[in-house]
């Protein structure tokens, strides 16, 4: 097990002194009777259950609903630190959107020799159906979830860019609501920047990218349905924005126009905030066995009769094999130096990288380029010899499917484990919205690896969540 003292601790300095931005919380924790804290931790669990904030876990029996463990010790970020992150996020997502437009138009970045053509053409997430299609305002990734971690050097690194259908924002909102309900005094004592206007910002973003014909656009949220692991979030966001939550069966396309079936007959739809993957969107265009999609949707989209958010084909930019090129994108499209760091990444498609990685499996993290949610990754230092050997075989079969990165020493935040506090690893996912402009709420979703020493924070892998505070 690694030594937590060597890691960056968000709350304490190396001398175990409380950092200034945690001072108010630390003082509160010291003064609040342990019994009240314990009681409220229990109350939080009950409340989450009653409100039904659960998520379905794939691979577990009969649509199991599980509660995400919620920890009451917040992840606190000082205001000026956040401003720096915010500038970096804005820059990064801007460049990614420019890249996506370029990929489906002139491919200037390829012709300039910055990215090899086969990285794009050979990428399964590249959608040739999108070539030459103009989307409103040139925005592809309207909602981006950029995962950030802090290494032991105290610097933030981008772990990955989620540009398809990033989820988790409802937990960010519910965590805040829960904290304010349980410990209102914490919010009275210090200026914590609010986050609850996120649905408003999202709605504004979606309205800004409506097709030109729509004066008062009809916006819907398209969900795969209530068996999906993120269904709670879909319903929650639709309700908060006051838009219809639709399933594929509720929509149909006629004359390249999308309609929803209502009790008053068909009603036209202008913007679809879709939480369904590309592959399932339109059985006529993509997977023919999809029961979740809407036949003819791609045609209506290409004709500019409806806006999809996010756009089709954004996966080509957040793919792990494209990740190493993002700093280059920032330089190429914006003429700026990247403000946020990338983790050094080995592409196993390169023979040199492959050789190095196979020789150092016990120190590296290996991921599938198409993977997400923490499924199918190898954390070298904590894996058994046996696991490493089996993974080696998988890599050798299809090396181009994998990337590897040094094992990052994720920063820690004290977390309740039983009755006592212990340091646990966290990451941070801010949600970056792009419509008429780039917008976000301060902070994001903090995920915490509950198991001791674990670096995997994904909820599907037993991770928990914390409230995230940006304090001034």
């Amino acid at each position, binding site marked *: 097990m690694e030594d937590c003292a060597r890691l960056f601790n968000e709350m304490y300095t190396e001398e175990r002194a409380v950092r200034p931005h945690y001072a108010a919380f630390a003082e509160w924790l010291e003064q609040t009777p342990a019994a009240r804290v314990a009681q409220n931790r229990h109350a939080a669990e009950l409340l989450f259950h009653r409100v039904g904030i659960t998520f379905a876990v794939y691979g577990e029996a009969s649509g199991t609903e599980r509660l995400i463990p919620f920890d009451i010790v917040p992840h606190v970020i000082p205001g000026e630190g956040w401003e720096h992150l915010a500038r970096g996020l804005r820059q990064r997502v801007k460049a990614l959107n420019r890249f996506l437009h370029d990929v489906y138009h002139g491919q200037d970045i390829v012709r300039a020799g910055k990215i090899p053509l086969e990285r794009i053409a050979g990428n399964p997430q590249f959608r040739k159906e999108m070539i030459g299609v103009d989307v409103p305002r040139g925005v592809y990734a309207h909602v981006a979830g950029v995962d950030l971690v802090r290494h032991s050097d105290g610097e933030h690194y981008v772990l990955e860019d989620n540009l398809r259908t990033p989820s988790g924002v409802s937990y960010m909102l519910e965590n805040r609501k829960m904290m304010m309900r349980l410990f209102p005094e914490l919010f009275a004592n210090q200026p914590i920047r609010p986050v609850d206007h996120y649905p408003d910002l999202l709605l504004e973003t979606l309205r800004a990218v409506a097709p030109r014909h729509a004066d008062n656009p009809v916006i819907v949220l398209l969900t795969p349905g209530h068996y999906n692991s993120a*269904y*709670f979030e879909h319903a929650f966001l639709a*309700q908060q924005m006051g838009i*219809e939550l639709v399933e594929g069966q*509720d929509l149909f396309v006629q004359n390249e126009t999308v309609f929803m*079936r*209502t*009790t008053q*007959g068909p009603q036209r739809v202008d913007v679809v905030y879709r939480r369904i993957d590309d592959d399932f969107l339109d059985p006529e265009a993509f997977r023919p066995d999809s029961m979740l999609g809407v036949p003819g949707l791609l045609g209506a989209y290409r004709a500019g009769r409806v806006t999809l958010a996010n756009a089709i084909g954004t996966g080509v930019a957040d793919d792990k094999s494209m990740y190493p090129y993002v700093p280059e994108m920032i330089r190429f499209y914006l003429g700026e130096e990247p403000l946020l760091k990338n983790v050094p990444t080995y592409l196993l498609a390169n023979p040199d990288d492959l050789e190095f990685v196979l020789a150092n499996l016990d120190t590296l993290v290996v991921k599938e380029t198409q993977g997400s949610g923490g499924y199918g990754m190898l954390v070298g230092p904590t894996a058994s010899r046996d696991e490493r050997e089996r993974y080696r075989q998988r890599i050798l079969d299809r090396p181009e499917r994998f990337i590897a990165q040094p094992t990052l020493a994720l920063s820690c935040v004290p977390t309740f484990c039983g009755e006592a506090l212990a340091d646990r690893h966290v990451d941070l996912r801010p949600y970056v919205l792009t419509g008429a402009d780039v917008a976000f709420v301060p902070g994001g979703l903090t995920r915490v690896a509950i198991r001791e020493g674990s670096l995997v924070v994904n909820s599907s892998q037993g991770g928990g969540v914390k409230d995230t505070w940006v304090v001034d």
Partner: protein
Amino acid sequence: MLSRVASSLYWMSRYVERAENTARVLDVAWRLSLLVKEPALQDQEWFAPLNITGTLFPFSGRHSEVCAREVLHFMALDPENPSSILSCARHARENARSVRGSITSEMWEVLNSTWLEMQQMDEEKMAARGVSQFFDWVKERSHLFRGVTFGTMHRDDAYEFARLGTHIERADSTARILDVKYHILLPSVKDVGGAVDYYQWSAVLRSVSAFEAYRKVYRDVITPLKLAELLILRDDLPRSLRFCIRQVSDTLGRVQNAQSTETLHQAAQILSGLQYGRISEIFAAGLHEYLTEFLVSTQDLGRMIQASFFSSSKVE
């Protein structure tokens, strides 16, 4: 609103109402069976709940004898019985879950916590808690859900479709309760009279929470004719057929669309029969025949609602 959502709201309310009515029917059977002293006759009372809910056939398929324990379990807690209270609670929650964006969080919380508590329930716990207490709890949860719906829900189409489900299910249920107990309402069949009849009749009234209303309206002893009049033709009793169908008809008027003309007509026709009906004529023609016809035309109405509001459509 979305057809699928309207349909889920409608069924969500129907299932809540169905759970409540099943609890009412079982509660009455339970109380009546306590009045009967002979064990053989006690079990007779347990046919009624099965008849009312139309589940005698599936019940007999899995149970050899009709007795209190078996019927109670089958109708309250059996997950295999699609109309058990447990199943209704599950269906109501599943429907609510698929339309969470259209109901208030308070409504969801009632159905969700009811289901969570329901899942913990088994025969032993029900017996330990007291059978009647269990039914009271089911009724309370239903009352709470209705109250929360009334008190928190935006008065839009979602509200209308939820109310539509409540009233059509309730009309169906009241008619079934009357139909199964109709033999005790026929004065000619039994001339025994006396205490047993009184308990039977008052049990029917209590099962639809109409005992106090009867006293208030008639200020008289309970007679079958008046009892039937109250539960069928009164316009001001919330569980009477006329009241429920008037609600259905009014609601349909507010949500009507281009395809719903025939549906509205059907509702109006059932309603006018109740508005202008006379209880003496109903008894003369046969109460059972009357109720059977009512149930058939209400089921037709249900199918028509399904077709005109919840089905797919194309642009003309």
